């Protein structure tokens, strides 16, 4: 897996979907999720010097996200990428197994920082099943595992719709948060779509 391509693709998808993410956030949050991630990911792209090893790409991008995004999603996504990068260490090549470790570390980072559980209607609801699906399928190779992760992220995100939010701004709405897709879960789907997009079928 090429970490830089992953982040680049994530940034492209977020830019294309920024308006949609912002609209989702306007419904149950404060209407800035797309703008936030877009700003953060541009900064992340700008921070990536040439020829960094994959782990370093992710920690650098993560730090930039933390530094430039603001909001809840900045520290959360930033921490996710940093933890993933740290888990990769100096490895020059990321295989299916390394990626599994990295994804698990990312999830752990988000959990620790945000203290959200599955079912709280946050990005965790997409991230956790995606990471689990990846792990369960990793033995079949990266393309299959990435595909499974994306499917699980999508299902997880969809599944946030009927939930009542207990974390993040949407929690302020109480029962009125029910019936809406969580914006952070939606952007997490894009993270995994980006991963699928940059994972060649034969990898």
């Amino acid at each position: 897996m090429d970490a830089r391509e992953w982040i680049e693709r994530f940034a492209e998808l977020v830019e294309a979907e920024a308006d949609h993410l912002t609209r989702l956030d306007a419904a149950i949050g404060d209407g800035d999720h797309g703008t936030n991630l877009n700003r953060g990911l541009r900064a992340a792209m700008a921070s990536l010097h040439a020829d960094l090893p994959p782990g370093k790409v992710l920690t650098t991008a993560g730090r930039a996200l933390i530094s430039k995004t603001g909001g809840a999603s900045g520290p959360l996504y930033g921490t996710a990428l940093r933890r993933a990068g740290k888990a990769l260490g100096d490895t020059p090549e990321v295989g299916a197994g390394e990626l599994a470790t990295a994804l698990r570390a990312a999830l752990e980072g988000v959990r620790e920082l945000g203290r959200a559980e599955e079912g709280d209607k946050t990005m965790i609801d997409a991230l956790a099943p995606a990471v689990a699906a990846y792990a369960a399928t990793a033995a079949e190779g990266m393309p299959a595992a990435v595909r499974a992760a994306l499917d699980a992220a999508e299902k997880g995100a969809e599944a946030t719709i009927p939930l009542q939010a207990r974390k993040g701004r949407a929690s302020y709405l109480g029962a009125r948060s029910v019936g809406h897709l969580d914006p952070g879960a939606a952007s997490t789907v894009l993270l995994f779509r980006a991963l699928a997009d940059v994972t060649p079928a034969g990898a």
Partner: protein
Amino acid sequence: MKKLIDAVDDVVLDALRGMAAAHPSLRVDLDERIIARADAPRPGKVGLVSGGGSGHEPLHGGFVGYGMLDAACPGEVFTSPVPDQILAATNAVSGGAGVVHIIKNYTGDVLNFQMAAELAGDDDIEVVPVMIDDDVAVQDSTFTAGRRGTGATLFAEKTAGALAEAGGSLSEVAAVATEVNERTRSFGVALTACTVPAAGRPTFDLGEDEIELGIGIHGEPGRERTRLRTASEIVDVALSAIDDDMPLSGSEVLVMVNGMGGTPLMELYAAYAAVADWLSGHGATVGRRLVGNYVTSLDMAGCMISVCRLTPRLAELWDAPVETPGLRWGR
């Protein structure tokens, strides 16, 4: 969308440039995006830093100055500041006696301030965070993000600022901010949504005869949408919610009728008349009050009512001189 701005992406920076040009008593760092007192850091004085998304003006930048904040770090509109910014503000005001962070309880603010505090600790600055969560519209629970920080922020900044100015220690300054937060409850009502420049459209759609009860200060809808009501009815909803959570009878209170940005002052005073009637009818005495746009949500119409049960000490700190762009008396 109609805004008095040059470009959507520059509005926060341009507003900072305006603050810098308008207020020689402030030192505005456009690169770091912080607003600090020109005389900061003051050796031996506890530093007081707050910050949050932009769009709530005069909060927080307008409350930097003598007797209130030492620095503010404004994020993008409705987006918490980033750790680098908070750290820069913390460094700028650190006079060796520690720095208190006044943080409105939103996940984004909490996480970013937390990261900044860790970084400040690396620089050997002792940081004490004080969380503001006064909004009774949100159910308080350990399983959720908890209550939002709203009007109590101003009360905490004013009183803690007075104590810091008077030489209070780090723990004393933090304690008074905490005490004010514990003694304050707020409830907000929106007559209209607001429009975030970057989004370009109102944060929600509301019918001509609908209002939102229990809103926050980020253009988010409230807990409940209802038909349009009179000012007296709205005041009753807000004060009843506050009173249910923190009985007011027998207390001397500091009360704020805070405009969300788009409601004329004439109407805020009309609402204050209803507030004064309600409180005296429920056995509370108004000791201090504030009517105006202090903690806003861009151009949202509506108001937020905040009530703090005073102690003689808090009243004294409230009355102490303050000299900021947004709040000034005694000098």
